[in-house]
């Protein structure tokens, strides 16, 4: 029997830098993203506050996981996690997730020229995104039907991409395609997008900005292809990085839903008692808490293993566990958050729905918990 993880001794590594970043990010998001602001941004087309984005960039948050030689701070994705968790807690709207992931893709598979051109800009605040998903809705990022065909010395893209986040604000989009029948990735700059290429999608989480991208009519030169031989590895890496970031965002979101629930249970009275004194409400709220604790422990363990090549199987298992754990716990917590608000919970005005929507968003991006458990079974139950 092979049980992955026995070797890693169940230790969570957490650095002084991470501790400081976590503290700063928690304070920043609490202050800059109160719920009124979240709601106001939801109704705006752009969906995020550009001045806050610039602040984030000047704090160096967009380059924490980028090498110093490209303008980053040379830390790792584990540092991005401590930023993503408080952002999730305050439903902070920004293209942080997509830009961080795009940088990961470039770091992993970009040519030297591409890295030099784009990474320093991204670290300074240029928004970048990825177009990895397709109409078939498959979570397997290697299931690609969009194509890049060679034509007149350049590339002509064919097909359609879905759930391209923050695309309208992005200076560049990394588009996964088949090129010569193999997975590839093309850098498409904003200027190369035909007028109607992007159309906004209506998605369940209204704090998110998501777009359909029609590839037909887009051309690019051959230098815009990322390194072909690194593509399979890079797609796998980006997938795992995405679920790690989503896990952080969901752990934070669950914490926010828990705060909201506890506050209501401590102020709402029925039958002359605070409703939090009823065990029918108190006990599931404790289940929310223990679910949050578990998910968070999985998260920080996964973060400390992430990117360690020596423990590739362990790290993959840990990251998938973090995602499955966080999405189940957040699903339960945000569901009970609505229920425990009673009639109020059924209204648009009540913030509980914001967390439920965020939970569903996180659950269905990059694989739900059952899908990850099936992958885990292949790793753990060989």
């Amino acid at each position, binding site marked *: *029997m092979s049980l992955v993880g026995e070797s890693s001794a*169940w230790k969570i590594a957490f650095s002084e830098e991470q501790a400081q970043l976590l503290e700063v990010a928690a304070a920043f998001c609490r202050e800059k993203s109160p719920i009124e602001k979240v709601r106001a941004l939801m109704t705006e087309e752009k969906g995020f506050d550009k001045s806050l984005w610039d602040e984030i960039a000047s704090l160096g948050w967009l380059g924490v996981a980028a090498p110093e030689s490209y303008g980053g701070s040379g830390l790792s994705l584990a540092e991005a996690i401590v930023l993503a968790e408080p952002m999730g807690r305050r439903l902070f709207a920004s293209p942080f997730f997509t830009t961080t992931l795009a940088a990961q893709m470039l770091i992993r598979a970009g040519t030297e020229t591409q890295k030099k051109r784009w990474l320093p800009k991204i670290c300074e605040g240029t928004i970048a995104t990825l177009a990895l998903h397709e109409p078939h809705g498959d979570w397997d990022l290697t299931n690609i039907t969009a194509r890049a065909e060679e034509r007149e010395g350049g590339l002509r893209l064919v097909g359609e991409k879905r759930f391209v986040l923050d695309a309208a604000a992005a200076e560049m989009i990394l588009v996964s395609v088949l090129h010569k029948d193999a997975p590839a990735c093309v850098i498409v700059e904003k200027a190369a997008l035909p007028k109607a290429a992007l159309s906004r999608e209506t998605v369940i989480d209204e704090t998110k900005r998501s777009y359909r991208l029609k590839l037909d009519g887009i051309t690019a030169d051959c230098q815009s292809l990322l390194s072909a031989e690194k593509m399979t590895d890079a797609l796998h890496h980006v997938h795992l990085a995405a679920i790690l970031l989503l896990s952080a965002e969901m752990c934070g979101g669950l914490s926010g839903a828990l705060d909201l629930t506890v506050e209501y249970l401590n102020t709402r009275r029925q039958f002359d008692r*605070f409703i939090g004194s009823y065990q029918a409400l*108190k006990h599931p709220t*404790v289940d929310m*808490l*223990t679910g949050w604790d*578990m998910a968070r422990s*999985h998260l920080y363990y996964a973060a400390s293993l992430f990117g360690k090549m020596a423990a590739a199987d362990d790290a993959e298992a840990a990251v998938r566990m973090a995602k499955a754990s966080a999405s189940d716990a957040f699903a339960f917590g945000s569901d009970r958050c609505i229920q425990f608000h009673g009639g109020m919970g059924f209204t648009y005005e009540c913030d509980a729905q914001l967390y439920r929507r965020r939970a569903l968003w996180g659950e269905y991006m990059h694989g739900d918990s059952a899908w990850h458990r099936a992958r885990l079974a292949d790793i753990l139950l060989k």
Partner: protein
Amino acid sequence: MAVDKEELQEFQKEVKAWFDANAPKDPGFLLPQSFMEVGTDKQFHFLRDWQREVYEAGYLGMAWPEDYGGGGKPQPFQDIVNREMAKRSLPFMVNIIGLSWAGPLILNMGTEAQKRAYIKNILSAEDIWCQGFSEPDHGSDLANAQLRAKKTGDHYLLNGSKIWTTLAHVAKYMILLARTDSQTNTKYEGLSFFLAPMDAPGIEIAPIRKLTGEYGFNQVFFADSPLPADCLMGEEGEGWMVAVKTLQFERGAEGGQAGGTSMVRTSVGEVVALARTVKRGGRPAIEDAHIRDQLVRFLMEEKGMRLNGARAKIKPLASERPGSLLMSVKLLESEFQRRLGAFALSLQGMNAAYYMGDPEAADRGRWQRGLFNAFSATIGGGTSEIQKNIIGERVLGLPKS
């Protein structure tokens, strides 16, 4: 005390070698999996001998003071032994109430005389300890204890009853919570805490048959049983504080335990192994997609609980909602074991309906017994429901139920 890393590594090698050579062989009968399940004399003697052997090898109470029979070493040495015992699923330390609750309490707040009188024999299992907390009418409501201790001269006279008293039938001493004053404003006042000898006149022990059909618990009756006044622990009337301290040791919220394991936990790995041997539709159960999904869920939970322990040690990651990680250990572990037990039975198909004693029962029926016994932890030491009240009120700040 600074600990040398190399010294620890050397020590770990030594410990592994000792357990390789000295781990007990299969005794030929089903051993209990926790101290709450010791039902027969042969089980008890086997376990007591095993604890003595571990102590005499120097692997128990390693961090307790040398003056009282301990090893006088830094805690990491004992931690290495504990991990090794757990990893090998070795039989647990039968005198765990002494090792983990009464002993640390005596070392923490006992008199010099008490330390000299009790500590060494706790470690060697010469004196077995039991705990007199629960009463027939007051299970989870510990502070409502009604057993009377009336002071008469240099003695207290005990009248009343304690229940669910594990090991009482073999115990020499009991840590006892009794009421010395019933005219108080709150139930928390008027309680006193004693280190009571079990051979006093007027004490009767009635074994309780458990849901498994076995024995292991007792009800203890006190009828005008005299207790010397110097058995008092702490001040008269301040027993609640001592009881709370004891619970902190019991629940692992405070360190200082002698070490050793208190139970043999069922690991998911064992259930995975079971799933490889039992069949579904002619194929190993482990090939079934639904069973695989369930197994992964359990593996995730098992890992999550260990990672909770790891995270609790990292201050910046445990400062939000403080206490949550430590206070939920018992709740999570015990409920997990109960569900895992039920799942292990479900893997066996129709054969799950066999029971201990039938030659066809898988692993001598340990899974069936394990499922029933799992309730001892979800009920004992404060039921899961009470735990949820406590966590909800203390960690989340919810109003009292």
